[in-house]
């Protein structure tokens, strides 16, 4: 009896299941065929009205935050630099500082401690709030101690620290259009820092007030040519033209700018070829031909980067000995390696700074390739084994990731009788491992923030082991760096940094590898696009033909 009852209900269930399955199958088919047949008309419709006045740009990852105080990544910078503006900005194609929300370059006192800045009048934030000296004060003060918090990665870099007696002491609003900044010590790169897309741009005080204390604002609001519309996590960020933009000569020419997040390099290329994106970033050098063959434009300009291998110079290590470092450098054919990995899209590095940044560096002499001499020295020194760590993730200065480099260095050194043991980590893990792992050689690099030589040359003098991965501790070099930061731009300063470059070549804490090119692909319909060497893209002058 019980059996029968159950049977009945089971039979009912199977019937139900069958109906449900059939129903969903039909819906699925209808859905698919509907989707399929609609597609063609759909694509046209999209490009006909809604998409005609929009440009889609691919990012490789989600922005970390859309608040200049709270990010240190290129993805956030590319989006934010179109929403926010600083008092100063860079020239269109280089790192020359230009006034933006300020009317002219600041008046700097002779001791380099006081900056008096005149502000532009009649500018409004996207939320209608007036831009004035109080807004500047609010924006900067949240990055100064004691308001500063540990989630503001560039605060101490730009605005200094009390403990180190560096950076900004006070910000005063003299009147509605004048701001006075008082420094603790003179710093030649401060003005360039104010022009960066990180930390410095001015944010609407109303938005800051609305955000919970100590965290990023959630409704991005600046004075820039584009207004924030929507951020769908992991999918896209949508911006809309700011009709009331103060700079009428550079008013936005495209209604919507869409940033689409696509992590995979191949998917990015496909999305360009398939018309889903108009501009794609971080093109792998090996796919460059695919873009030009498909009738698309390739953007390829020198970046502000250095890609290098560092020797661990800690006392007692194999590479504490300068001759060993030189011999290892001799064993590696940097030119052949750079050409195999990056083809024509990177140049062999002859200096720490890219040549366009510091043309005086072209006469620096780096160690030449000489495997026989290397083999002899290394044998004499008894070097047979090296521990190497590297990163697996693509970086702005190395679009291929560090594994190919490590593999090739392993290949070269095996030919001079040295075994290299490679350990690889993803980038974020790697950043902590360079401080803790007992490596002999490691791979690293740097993207310039502001075009100042100190921003590059300070790295091997930094006390932070994750910045100075060679753990190099050279008093003479550090003295030069300290002198350089306090010296105003000019021949005297250039001479100091040239001396730094020569010391780097002679002492060999690093083996310089390459300066990369920024590689992007874009549709020929896009006009006026330029990728700035500091790693951002300004869309105010960019348009797209229908």
């Amino acid at each position: 009896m019980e059996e029968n009852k159950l049977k009945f209900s089971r039979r009912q269930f199977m019937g139900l299941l069958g109906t449900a399955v059939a129903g969903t199958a039909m819906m699925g088919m209808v859905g698919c065929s509907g989707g399929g047949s609609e597609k063609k008309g759909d694509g046209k419709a999209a490009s006909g009205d809604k998409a005609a006045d929009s440009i889609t740009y691919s990012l490789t990852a989600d922005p970390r935050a859309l608040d200049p105080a709270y990010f240190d990544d290129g993805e956030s910078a590319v989006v934010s630099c179109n929403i926010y503006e600083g008092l100063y900005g860079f020239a269109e194609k280089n790192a020359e500082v230009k006034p933006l929300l300020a009317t002219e370059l600041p008046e700097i006192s002779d001791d380099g401690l006081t900056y008096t800045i005149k502000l532009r009048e009649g500018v409004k934030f996207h939320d209608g709030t007036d831009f004035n000296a109080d807004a500047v004060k609010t924006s900067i003060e949240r990055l100064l101690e004691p308001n500063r918090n540990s989630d503001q990665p560039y605060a101490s870099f730009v605005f200094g620290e009390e403990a180190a007696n560096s950076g900004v002491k006070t910000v005063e609003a003299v009147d509605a259009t004048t701001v006075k900044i008082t420094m603790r010590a003179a710093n030649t790169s401060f003005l360039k820092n104010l022009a960066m897309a990180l930390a410095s741009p001015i944010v609407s005080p109303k938005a800051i007030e609305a955000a919970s204390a100590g965290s990023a604002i959630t409704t991005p609001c600046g004075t820039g040519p584009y207004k924030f519309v929507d951020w769908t996590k992991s999918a896209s960020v949508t911006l809309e033209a700011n009709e009331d933009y103060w700079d009428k000569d550079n008013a936005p020419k495209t209604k919507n700018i869409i940033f689409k997040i696509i992590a995979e390099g191949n998917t990015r290329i496909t999305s360009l070829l398939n018309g889903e994106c108009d501009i794609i970033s971080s093109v792998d050098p090996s796919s460059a031909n695919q873009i030009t063959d498909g009738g698309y434009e390739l953007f390829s300009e020198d970046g502000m980067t250095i890609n290098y291998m560092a020797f661990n110079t800690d006392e007692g290590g194999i590479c504490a000995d300068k001759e060993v470092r030189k011999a290892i450098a001799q064993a590696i054919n940097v030119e052949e390696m750079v050409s195999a990995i990056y083809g024509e899209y990177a140049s062999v590095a002859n200096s720490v700074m890219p040549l366009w940044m510091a043309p005086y560096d072209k006469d620096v002499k780096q160690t030449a390739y000489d495997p026989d001499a290397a083999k002899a020295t290394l044998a004499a020194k008894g070097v047979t084994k090296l521990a190497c760590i590297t990163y697996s993730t693509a970086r702005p200065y190395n679009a291929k990731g560090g594994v190919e480099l490590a593999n090739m260095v392993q290949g070269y050194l095996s030919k001079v009788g040295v075994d290299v043991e490679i350990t690889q980590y993803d980038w974020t893990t790697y950043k902590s491992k360079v401080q803790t792992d007992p490596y002999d050689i490691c791979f690293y690099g740097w993207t310039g923030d502001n075009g100042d030589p100190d921003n590059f040359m300070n790295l091997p003098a930094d006390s932070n082991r994750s910045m100075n991965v060679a753990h190099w501790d050279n008093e003479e070099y550090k003295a030069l760096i300290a002198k350089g930061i306090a010296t105003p731009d000019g021949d005297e300063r250039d001479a100091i940094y040239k001396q730094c470059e020569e010391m780097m070549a002679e002492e060999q804490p690093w083996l310089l590898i390459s300066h990369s090119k920024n590689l992007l692909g874009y549709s020929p319909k896009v006009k006026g696009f330029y990728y700035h060497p500091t790693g951002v893209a300004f869309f105010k002058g960019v348009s797209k033909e229908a």
Partner: protein
Amino acid sequence: MSKKTVLATQGAAGEVTNSQAQQPVEKRESIWKDVLDGIVSNKAALVSAIFILLLALIAIVTKLVPGILPYDPYEQNLAESVQGPSAAHWFGTDIQGRDIFSRVLVGTQITLVVGLAAVAISLTVGVLLGAIAGYKGGKWDTVIMRIMDMMLAIPSILLAIAIMAALGQGIEKAVVAIGLVAIPEYARIVRSEILAIKENDYVAAARVIGDSNFAIVFRHVLPNALPSIIVRATLGISSAILDCAALGFLGLGVQPPDAEWGDMLGRGRNELFRAPWLMIFPGLAITLTVLAFNLLGDGIRDGLDPKSRKR
């Protein structure tokens, strides 16, 4: 059901016609004989078995006599960087100028070891736990299956990645991670098989005769679950190979310069447009190997299930 039909049932499962069919020794022999029959009588399975043996042979020979390979699979030669397939390099070369054909051959070592070792771990532990849970029932069942549920509730790849992110990389860790995360699947399958057959008369009869629980499980219950376990284990080897490839694809695979197919495929995808062979040959190698294990499993299955075998 009477005792007579019990014997008939067993006869059907094992294709043994004599009246001693329930004797464990003969039964087990007949299962493995059927496995062999299944392979031999099914062309696809036979080809697959030969293919797998060939892979094993390649793995052993390249391990013992590396000189037999056309090129040193690890030696860098930048003069021949990224060349298409040719008479000299059948599968082309990678960015370091290494011969892909030699690397694919050497890759059999890691692939087979990962597949077999991971399945050995999950099979042993999973069958044991599933058998205990299903047969003992009650608290045993509750505790074991709850632990299985906990593990199942975390997607295996995510769990494996978390374990490897915490412990660091290495193929041994990948084997352990892949093996551990697959345990619950075997446990659940074995348990459900056992639940479905343990109330059968012949098991009850064995109890009446006075066989110990252990003996009942191993003589009467497990052999009946064996076809499902074998089908699952062949799929398990494929899943293990695929999981390993997935870890390689995500950049968590072997250490350079070791050759592992998933790792080669993962790296090759960056060159997809310039050098598709970097991705196609390792991908084919994975697919064919996995395919071979699946076809072999099918053959074995048909062998164990004579009613469905083609005659």
